């Protein structure tokens, strides 16, 4: 379970998070939605320790993330980055098996490669891509490799940062389906940030909407269309008119 309590974060005079409270139950898939620049990525990075919150508390399975053993803590995480964030200098299989080739989860090279190829197969890629380099892959394939890397060490918690950005609708659908299948299959707790509503409906058990640095609404995905919340309604229907100020 992931709990965020009163998270504040400012960058200079720009107060991005102003008291985020959010609970993601174990084994559930939470999707955080919100406009660009509302602090979705910052929220995710706070949980991962990539950004230090100014105030508040983040608990993962009851443990304060700032006090937990960092290596053990990160070992239970997998993350799919918006642009894939694959390492250019490493081949596809070395990217996927990165965690398995070094550190506390290190294992023999042959075994790591076999696991990488199995994970690539799981995301719909053939073993022939294993020895290619990221620059030789299309955007959709890079996302799949990023997904394979995120699940390579069978993490308990997986984060997805804008998983369908930059993909055509068909490829976006494929990635959404894969994410849903993998999360269910692994029984992992998932946290996704996106403003793609088709992703929300495909991936989420629960949805939270971030606006003005706080969670404006949260609830199960089934209540998304009849929440009665004017902010959420405006956002999911993509209306220019409403309480969320649209810059023209």
């Amino acid at each position, binding site marked *: 379970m992931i709990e965020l309590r009163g998270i504040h974060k400012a960058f200079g005079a720009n107060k991005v998070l102003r008291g985020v409270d959010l609970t993601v139950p174990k084994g559930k898939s939470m999707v955080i939605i919100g406009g660009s620049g509302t602090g979705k990525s910052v929220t995710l*990075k706070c949980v*991962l*320790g*990539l950004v230090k919150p100014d105030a508040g508390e983040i608990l993962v399975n009851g443990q304060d993330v700032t006090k937990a053993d960092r*290596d053990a803590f*990160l*070992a239970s*995480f*997998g*993350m799919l*980055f*918006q*642009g894939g*964030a*694959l*390492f*250019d200098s490493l081949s596809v299989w070395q990217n996927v098996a*990165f*965690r398995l080739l*070094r*550190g*506390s*989860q290190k294992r023999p090279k042959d075994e790591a490669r076999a696991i990488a190829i199995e994970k690539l197969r799981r995301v719909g890629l053939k073993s022939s891509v294993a020895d290619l380099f990221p620059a030789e892959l299309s955007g959709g394939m890079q996302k799949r490799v990023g997904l394979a*890397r995120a699940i390579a060490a069978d993490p308990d918690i997986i984060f997805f940062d804008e998983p369908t950005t930059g993909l055509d609708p068909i490829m976006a659908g494929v990635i959404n389906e894969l994410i849903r299948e993998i999360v269910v299959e692994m029984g992992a707790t998932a946290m996704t940030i996106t403003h793609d509503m088709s992703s929300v409906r495909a991936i989420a058990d629960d949805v939270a909407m971030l606006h003005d640095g706080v969670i404006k609404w949260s609830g199960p995905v089934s209540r998304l269309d009849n929440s009665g919340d004017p902010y959420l309604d405006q956002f999911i229907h993509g209306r220019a008119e409403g309480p969320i100020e649209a810059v023209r």
Partner: protein
Amino acid sequence: MLIDTVAGIGRSTLRLLAEIGRATLFFLRALAAMFSPPFYFREFGHALLTIGYFSLPVVGMTAVFTGAALAIQVYAGGSRFQAESVVPSIVAIGMTRELGPVLGGLMVAARVTSSIAAEIGTMKVTEQLDALVTLSTNPMRYLTAPRVLAATITMPVLVGLGDIIGIFGGYLVGTERLGFNRAAYLKNTVDFLETWDVTSGMIKGAVFGCLIALVGCYYGMHSNRGAQGVGRATKTAVVMASVFILASNYILTELFFTG
């Protein structure tokens, strides 16, 4: 008006102090990462190759032409007071103490600092540094430590080779163009050259190597978003590395050869 000026100076001073503080902390963290596990031997080997081996042509070309030009200059200058015979010893001392390490350092800075800053800067803007952290890998240990260590080790070797090539450049011009006897030129070079001339240059090389990689890593990791941010980081890294090389060269020369 006066208050605005004072406030501007104050802001600039604070920014400068903050930058110095950040750079010092970065240097200390890099040092700690170099001498504590885990060690990434593959990355270290790769850095040895890219920083050391692949810099050899540029260092060699710089050295041979510098040695050749130095021989002509010393000959021309020395002829004013009938001291042309000092060409071999001045070329050797000039190359080993000053020109070999400084020009070699500047050329390696242009080649390596820019490459490191651009590579790490691009990794930062494409979230690869964040990805490293989420994969339980400390970027200081994985990226900075191998590069700094490799540059510190390979620069003295490059300087040593540059010295030999530079002296050879002077020898070629001296014997083929200025009419020196080959055996006498070599004898003069060897007789007047002391071990400390060579080792002091190599120590300078180690310091320059450390600075070259550290500055590249620092500006890469503190690069701003976008292509412009990476471009600015790369340019600043090369300029700062060059300035640091020249400034530290002066300090080391003071330490080694005065008092």
